[in-house]
């Protein structure tokens, strides 16, 4: 409930329960709680409401409502064992076991040398192929489409229509002829066509059109800002639009302008969230 000016807000009271108050507010808030029966009562109310909701949910969906865990546990054990066995079957693990550490380091050194030569060769080849055509711009190690070729194109649909239709764009096939046109437009050598996925810049789930201005060749080779990361952004924007947190035009504009910046903006991160955060201090 809203509090009067001289009482704590519900937000602050909520943060008290997790000891997450801003350090500068910690002492005054606790001092206020000590002296204010109204805020203590409100704190108790909030805790009660949350506990009651939790209880309601757990009683409604308690263990007996869920399938027994035994079968699922057995299935997981089998899959874990299979995963472990597939590791142990790799022959070079066994080879490494019988080698001395010195030999292993020598092999690692040789492998690094070969890798360096390989990278040089690939870059040399890429430099040569760039003479054929400029495949894509790179933004912070990530590919972005050429704005002149792929500015993005949308259909005249509303957010309501998109969300009601439930079409997230995930099953929309791109005809082979159109794919070919896109690759030609980007002057991608035929020998390298298999290295690219022709993808929508603005996904159909956000109103993107089946139009060559909305298609670009996304390289599979990008290891950081790759197609999977872009898919996650598309899902996030679709969710935000359909839950009313973001208007459709902004979502379309942001993903079409620079999808990597949009990802950083809407996931509040500088890097793709493909691995768990390491910064949190909370353990199990």
């Amino acid at each position, binding site marked *: 409930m809203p509090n009067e000016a001289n009482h704590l807000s519900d937000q602050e009271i909520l943060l008290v329960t*997790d000891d*997450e108050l801003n350090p500068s507010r910690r002492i005054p808030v606790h001092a206020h709680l000590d002296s204010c029966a109204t805020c203590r009562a409100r704190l108790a109310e909030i805790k009660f409401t949350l506990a009651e909701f939790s209880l309601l949910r757990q009683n409604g*969906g308690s263990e007996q409502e869920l399938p027994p*865990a035994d079968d699922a546990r057995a299935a997981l054990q089998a899959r874990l064992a299979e995963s472990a066995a597939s590791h142990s079957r790799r022959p070079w693990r066994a080879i490494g076991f019988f080698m001395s550490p010195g030999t292993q380091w020598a092999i690692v050194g040789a492998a690094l040398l070969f890798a360096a030569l390989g990278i040089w060769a690939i870059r040399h080849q890429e430099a040569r192929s760039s003479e054929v055509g400029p495949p894509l711009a790179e933004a912070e190690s990530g590919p972005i489409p050429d704005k002149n070729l792929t500015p993005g194109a949308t259909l005249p649909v509303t957010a309501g229509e998109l969300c*009601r239709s*439930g079409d997230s764009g995930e099953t929309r096939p791109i005809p082979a002829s159109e794919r070919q046109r896109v690759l030609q437009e980007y002057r991608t050598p035929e020998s390298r066509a298999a290295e690219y996925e022709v993808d929508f810049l603005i996904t159909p789930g956000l109103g993107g059109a089946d139009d060559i201005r909305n298609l670009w060749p996304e390289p599979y080779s990008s290891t950081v800002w790759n197609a999977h990361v872009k898919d996650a952004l598309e899902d996030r924007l679709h969710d935000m639009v359909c839950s009313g947190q973001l208007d459709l035009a902004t979502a379309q504009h942001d993903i079409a302008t620079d999808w990597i910046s949009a990802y950083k903006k809407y996931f509040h991160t500088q890097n793709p969230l493909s691995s768990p955060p390491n910064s*949190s201090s909370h353990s199990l």
Partner: protein
Amino acid sequence: MAISLSDSLRRLPLSRVDDSASPALASELENEIIGLFDEFRARLLRYALSFGLSVHDGEEIIQEVFLSLYRHLQLGRSRKNLRGWLFRVVHNLSLKQRHAAHGVRRTIISDGSLMEKQIDLAPNPEEQLAAVQRHARLRAVLQALPERDQSCLHLRAEGLRYREIADVLGMSLGAVSISLTRSLARLERADEK
């Protein structure tokens, strides 16, 4: 674009062979994963089902989440905030699966089944009726909440701290507290009627 659960799972960190891991260590890790499964399976499954998924899909997601956790720990990655990690992966896979399987936007707790069983707790018919009506009101309020607010409530109900909820949903801590404040106010108003 990915179109199936198994496809979406391929977006998770890939396995890498750890040469130093002995069979004994691998077995120890498997036991640890099973221990975590026993501890969190019901809570994670409830959360997955809150997206309107079938039990079968929910169970499959939980399996894949723990396999991913196994790979994650094999890679020697951080063990901090594993609980938040588990819920985040369940959240992402559930959203993905809902898009892939149903292709429709659903409201969390779409059938209300999670909240309909508690009426037996009321000792007499009059109280039972009052409980039914109250639960119906709360259910209606929940269904009317934005999806993000529902997720915050569900995650809090599963015992996550606000900071963990923020991590799972990609929100700021302040946004989580605002969301919960809004949801609490609505629940309390419904309860006063």
